[in-house]
């Protein structure tokens, strides 16, 4: 197959994002008086995540689907790296744009491996290359190919299916990805994990992503830039999360973002920005006297953290449990240490920590191994110490992170 020249293909070859630009795009559905998307103009820089957010029916999905022409604009144009999306045949265009839909939409009759292989097959890659790519992608999204490639979608959990959806969208290494509420169908805790995982993945792949959600918190967490749409498909504000929280452009934005804007600013900071405290990790059967000695060396810490043989946290051991001598009793550990990841927002971390008896967050890596601890105090400190941002203005917490 001889690929057509042009920026869309060009961007594909170096496998990073492309600039996506909406120019005065309007969509009016037949038989409807008011437009679903009204004169939308915005530019998503290459490699950034642009989140479209707004109340139900405000035209988020419509805007997104016009990028891969599942819906065609009534007027205006959309370009990818300057090239009009209308200049390519629709199927060619779509094979070069990753697409993850609301309900993930895995093909139930195909194995996980075959689902991921769909676009490479449409592009007629060689079998060998497809096999290698499928394995690579499953590993990238954290699913062991040996265990998962031959299974069917019904045999996976919601979170696992979501990862397969992402792997499938990444298969042909498209410069642009469209994601419509990709984390909508999973519970809040798993959602946080998947978001973190996705942000780590994006660090590596640097795609240009148009991401639709109706959840402001998700928008603040995921976005480099947020486009807030209001009813009638009108763009209410397009800016970085920090700027939107600091200066909402209208009463609508202010109301949509919510009264707790100050608190939401905490979402701009990440656990990874905080100073971590070293955790005193202990395993079942360790000697109490030795643990006490280790704990005494750290002033701010009254608790040791019991971990399993994979370094995954099991629960807190307090001074009471350490009285006397001999091996510690693992039963004594009080469970419920809130675990956070480096990508977790300070807001989510804080709310987890406030809800537990020991006000420390256990920072874990993607394999759930303990990296260290963060304290409520450290978050408080960030709140009190505004940082000087690149634009010279004083911004509260979190600006440094974005």
């Amino acid at each position, binding site marked *: 197959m001889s690929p057509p020249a042009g920026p869309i293909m060009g961007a594909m070859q170096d496998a990073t994002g492309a600039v996506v630009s909406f120019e005065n795009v309007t969509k009016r559905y037949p038989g409807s008086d008011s437009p679903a998307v009204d004169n939308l103009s915005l530019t998503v820089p290459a490699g950034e995540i642009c989140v479209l957010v707004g109340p139900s029916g405000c035209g988020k999905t419509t805007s997104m689907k016009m990028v*891969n022409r*599942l819906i065609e604009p009534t007027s205006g144009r959309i370009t990818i790296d300057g090239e009009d999306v209308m200049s390519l045949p*629709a*199927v*060619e*265009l*779509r*094979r*070069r744009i990753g*697409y993850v*839909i*609301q*309900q993930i*939409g*895995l*093909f*139930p*009759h*195909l*194995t996980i491996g075959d689902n991921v292989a*769909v*676009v490479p097959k*449409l592009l007629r890659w060689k079998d060998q290359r497809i096999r290698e790519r499928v394995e690579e992608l499953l590993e990238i999204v954290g699913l062991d190919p040996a265990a998962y490639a031959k299974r*069917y*979608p*019904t045999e996976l959990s919601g979170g696992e299916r979501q990862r397969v959806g992402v792997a*499938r969208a990444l298969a042909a290494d498209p410069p642009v990805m*469209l994601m419509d509420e990709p984390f909508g169908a999973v519970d809040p805790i798993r959602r946080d994990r998947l978001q973190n995982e996705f942000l780590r993945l994006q660090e590596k792949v640097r795609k240009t992503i148009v991401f639709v959600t109706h959840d402001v918190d998700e928008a603040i967490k995921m976005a480099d830039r947020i486009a807030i749409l209001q009813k009638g498909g009108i763009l209410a504000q397009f800016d970085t999360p920090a700027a939107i929280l600091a200066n909402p452009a209208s009463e609508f934005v202010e109301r949509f973002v919510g009264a707790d804007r100050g608190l939401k600013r905490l979402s701009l900071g990440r656990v990874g920005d905080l100073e971590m405290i070293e955790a005193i990790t202990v395993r079942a059967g360790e000697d109490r006297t030795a643990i006490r000695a280790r704990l005494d060396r750290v002033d701010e810490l009254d608790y040791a953290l019991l971990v399993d043989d994979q370094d995954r946290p099991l629960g807190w051991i307090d001074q009471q449990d350490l009285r006397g001598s001999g091996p510690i009793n693992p039963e004594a550990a009080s469970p419920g240490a809130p675990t956070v990841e480096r990508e977790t927002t300070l807001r989510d971390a804080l709310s987890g920590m406030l809800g537990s008896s020991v006000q420390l967050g256990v920072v874990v890596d993607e394999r759930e191994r303990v990296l260290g601890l963060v304290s409520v105090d450290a978050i408080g400190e960030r709140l009190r110490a505004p940082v000087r941002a690149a634009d010279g203005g004083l911004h509260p917490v979190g600006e440094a992170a974005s």
Partner: protein
Amino acid sequence: MEFFGEVAAWFADPANWNGPDGIPARIGEHLVLSIVPLAAAVAVALPVGAWIGHTGRFSNLVINIANVGRAIPSLAILALAAMLLQRTIVDIGLRDSASEIVTMIALFFLAIPPILTNAYVGINEVDDQIVEAGRGMGMRDLEILRRVEIPVGLPVILVGVRTAAVQVVATATLGAVVATGGLGRYIIDGIAQRRFDEVFAGALIVAALSIATELGFSFIERRATSPGLRGRDTAPRELAQAGRPGGI
């Protein structure tokens, strides 16, 4: 009890297993009489039903054909075909197999509704989200049909074919009324000559053949269905399931 003895004796008689009116020959005729119209109906109704299911256009047509097909008794279809076509067939010089052709045409029309309906329903019921995922990934219409809609709808589609097959096999018996071969001969001739052991034996063989058809198609359905689709609702759809019983 005596009667069953006679039926058993009929089956035991080597004369009934040989020659042009022996059981193997009659089963052979019966199968030809069934397979030809079934294959023709599959060739016509599957693509049409699938395409209507894919596009959603003309779906009223499917529903109407199914309803009309359900309302007309098999015997009426056969009589109608005989009345309308026998002359023409004879005129074009096919006198020797005229009754076979008439029967096959009737069976063809009999097989259309369940195949058409289930092909339409099977494709139409495929989750819109999945279809849109395929479209969004750059599948063309035919690729969506071939790679997504047909395999996902296959269990339902095959139930339609099975329903049609069983109906055709059972109803091919009626061909004997217009003088075809096949297992119906035992029944029609048996009645005419008051040989009820033969009538009953013929009915038994037809029943056995119908059951074998049912089992054979069920086996194919299981083999052809992706393991990822197991446990879904593949129960025959209302429209196709309510096919008429194989008799009159």
